[in-house]
């Protein structure tokens, strides 16, 4: 299983689309590693500087409808090669969410109130996020603050996380 915990990258905007996650001009790359420097290159978010803000972060917390746009799997790959394995948001585009689990990455649905509260209390600070799969709880902490929330995943989503994604899941589960 991947390491889903760590420092948080706050992206305070709704509808961040797959083109903003990884611009279409990089789709001709045949290795995932090549996507690494281009994550969020075209993201329209005041004050955001990818080369400074991304390194070291493990968890993204964002607003509604994260990952909308095309069905390209390059979007979760671009997150993965940057070590960003977890995204928390109040709602994802359906295919993006499915692609995350297929890649063995974690997408957690937040309630809108929880999301608002998180941004209020933690945005702009150095925050950390810890996921406890056993108890389906997660914790966000900063120097002055601590917030604990519950989340839910289907059994299939847990299995995919556990296996490391659909490729490894299928390889262990089906004959051939």
């Amino acid at each position, binding site marked *: 299983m991947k390491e889903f915990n760590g420092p948080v990258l706050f992206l305070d905007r709704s509808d961040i689309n797959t083109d903003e996650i990884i611009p279409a001009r990089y789709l001709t790359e045949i290795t*995932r590693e090549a996507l690494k420097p281009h994550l969020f290159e075209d993201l329209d978010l005041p004050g955001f500087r990818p080369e400074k803000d991304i390194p070291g972060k493990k968890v993204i917390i964002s607003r509604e409808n994260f990952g909308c746009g095309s069905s390209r799997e390059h979007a979760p790959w671009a997150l993965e090669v940057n070590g960003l394995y977890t995204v928390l948001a109040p709602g994802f585009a359906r295919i993006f969410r499915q692609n995350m689990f297929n890649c063995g990455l974690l997408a957690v649905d937040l309630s809108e109130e929880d999301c608002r509260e998180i941004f209020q209390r933690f945005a702009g600070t150095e925050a950390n996020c810890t996921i406890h799969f056993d108890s389906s709880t997660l914790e966000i902490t900063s120097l002055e603050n601590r917030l604990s929330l519950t989340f839910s995943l289907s059994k*299939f989503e847990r299995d995919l996380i556990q296996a490391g994604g659909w490729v490894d899941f299928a390889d262990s589960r*089906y004959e051939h």
Partner: protein
Amino acid sequence: MGKTIAEKIFDLHRVDTPAEGVEVLRIDTVFCHEITTPPAILDLIARGKDRVFDSHRIKAVIDHVSPAKDSKTALQGKVLRDWARRHQIKDFFDIGRNGVCHALFPEKGFVRPGNTIIMGDSHTCTHGAFGAFAAGVGTTDLEVGILKGVCSFHSPETIKINLTGDRGKGVYAKDVILAILGKIGTNGATGRVIEFTGAVIDAFTMEERMTVCNMAVEAGATSGICAPDMTTVTYLWPFIAEEFSSKEEALAAYRAFTADPDAEYAETVDLDVSSLEPLTTTGFKPDMVVPARELSGTKIDQVYIGSCTNGRIEDLRVVAQVIQGREVHPEVRAIVSPATPGVYGQALKEGLLEIFQSAGFCIMNPTCGACLGMSGGVLAEGETCASTTNRNFNGRMGKGGIIHLMSPATAAASAVTGHITTADAL
């Protein structure tokens, strides 16, 4: 309760239901090309899983950019070629024997009624013309397909499109599917399977059915399907003659993949084609459909005849018929790419290539070429192309280029006049 064709195919291929509404199917054949397969291959290598589930049930082709145009596309071809050799994939088609995947694979007899087929390509739905469930998939699904011969899908809902009436002269399968898109829109069948039925489909040749199924994805469909009938059996006969003692026997077996009379559809759409006229698109979505004559003032810079939609022999015959004894307009660049070496050879034999050549067409080798704007006819900014392909998305044939989708007949007539023209107006 009766079942749709997709439900019957799902029932025969289901190996697992890992979550509610998620079904894992055994896949009969995995098709591969050089754009989407290399990332899957490289990821399998990185995971230490460089294996294939069955080298006989994987078919691969280099078709999108062939011959390679630069180092990047050369590498894409090389990754696929090396992998095919490493795993002894016998049905691998490289330059000289290659052609557009969705035209080549049916021509080789790789598709059977009731099959499940996946490929990392959205127009995989073309193969549904044979009564197969054929779907385009993403890289991870393709990887799992290559490795294990399975793929997961959401339980299929089917929408039935019933085509009735008499097609007028000059109205082709392409006009029929454009009319459908105009009616149901690019979201009209999202996540669903389309079953094409009715007298119009019954009368269609296999090539015409492929043209229609090819564009099912433009309505968002996972797959388009036509029930197998004697037309299907006759097309497949050279490949199945050993399996069955007669065509009737083959038909009886394939009838298993016909919908039950009481099958349940999410929706039924009726379309009478009697009043159809030649159509084309405007704008950047394939459902923005208008009668071609309404755009007759539109000047064009390029004509492209080819692709998995309309690059087959019947299409080239229509083009030849229209342009015979005429010439390509001096301000038009006309390109024809027969979709496969088989089509190319047949066109040569029938004298069609000579007609194209003397009319002023550039005859290209079989490849996707300009269809995806990577080679062989990329448009300059502001240029317009009359095209027999399936997508008019913004920038598809080159940044700033404009594409009007249409039948081979309308494209050929437009090549002659230099503006959008229906063949009967020549």
